[in-house]
């Protein structure tokens, strides 16, 4: 199930719950205790699913199209924070000091990422993610699977030999076909929709204190 499908189903659950609540309010005089308990339980559970989605959106940080959430996995987190983290990163997620993760399925303008168009992630000079371990940018299709490609490259990062531009900036080419002359900085995209994951392990202080922002993915000018 893709994330969009999940969000759509959550919205459907919310609408059904709202309908049942309105109907209950209008027919309060003909209710039975059994109605109250059974319908209350299911409506409450449904609203819980909706609430987790809303909490996740409140607690998450979304900058330049990238979604992350600071402060996950820490002992002492409250129930709302724990639920939000479990929704954004469904698993035993690291504490921020160990690793930070960003994901996106859209470019900086909010358009869906797809191999039908060419995209670039441009890091300004000195703007690669600060860290004491490693960082990587990984390509996934809409179902979060790796993408088959002719050069067997599934991620780029500090260990992949990225070439710098003359001014020290770094461009990563996110497209379905190889960019002429820039193969070392090519992260192959599928023909259709894709998602990106940015991982930074042992992130630097600039990340942990919010001073660092991940640059937006931008659509390249059409050249084919």
């Amino acid at each position: 199930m893709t994330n969009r499908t999940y969000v759509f189903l959550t919205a459907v659950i919310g609408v059904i719950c709202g309908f049942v609540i309105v109907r209950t309010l209008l027919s309060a005089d003909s209710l039975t205790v059994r109605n109250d308990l059974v319908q209350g339980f299911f409506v409450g559970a449904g609203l819980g699913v909706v609430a987790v989605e809303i909490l996740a959106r409140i607690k998450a940080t979304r900058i330049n199209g990238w979604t992350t959430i600071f402060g996950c996995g820490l002992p002492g987190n409250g129930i709302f924070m724990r639920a939000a983290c479990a929704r954004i990163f469904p698993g035993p997620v690291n504490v921020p000091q160990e690793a930070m993760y960003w994901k996106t399925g859209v470019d900086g303008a909010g358009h869906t990422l797809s191999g039908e168009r060419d995209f670039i992630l441009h890091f300004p000079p000195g703007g690669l993610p600060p860290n004491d371990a490693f960082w990587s940018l990984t390509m996934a299709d809409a179902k979060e699977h790796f993408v088959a490609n002719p050069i067997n490259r599934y991620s780029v990062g500090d260990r992949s030999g990225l070439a710098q531009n003359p001014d020290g900036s770094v461009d990563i080419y996110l497209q379905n076909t190889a960019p002429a002359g820039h193969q070392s900085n090519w992260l192959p995209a599928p023909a259709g929709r894709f998602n990106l994951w940015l991982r930074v392990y042992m992130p630097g202080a600039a990340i942990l204190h919010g001073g660092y922002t991940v640059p937006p993915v931008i659509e390249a000018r059409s050249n084919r």
Partner: protein
Amino acid sequence: MTGYQHLLLFGSVVVAACFLVIYFWPRILLFVYKRAILVKGFGEGPIPVNTLYTEPQAVFADPLRAAPASGSNLMTTGANRDTLLMAGWLDLRTGPQVLHVPDMGDRYYSVQLTDPSNNTNFAYVGKRVTGTEAGDYVISGPGWTGSVPQGMTRISSPNNSVLILGRTLVESDADLSAAYALSKQIHLRPLGG
């Protein structure tokens, strides 16, 4: 009961059920991991309790492989091309477990200890927290009163159940076998066993 009382009861049940879902959401998520480890395994059968399973080299080397015919694909979803993964489930009711880590030679690695009741990490062993030298860490459950042997470090778990998740950095395809050999040396044994 009057309509008003019915609405009050209905509303109370709604609010309670809503909070239950929010509260149990991380716990249910971690229960899925527990089942994946102890019941399904990752293609080579279930992982016994108090055992650390290491992702096979072949799985890391072939990111496009099909999901294992039997077992969970949880370990290999998430599009990770950086670290070899290790996973295990601890049951500390029968006594502490000793986590042994070898000298990792300055390589990034981490062993994350997660309380499955709320999906928070109560301790780490690894480059960031303990460095990359060899060491033995006694992971004890609540209420354990024994003494820790000399040369070992105690880690107190708030829960008798612990999800343990390890990551070892793979520098390149050529480095995979070295990373795997080091990961395999990270292991668990019972204290006094």
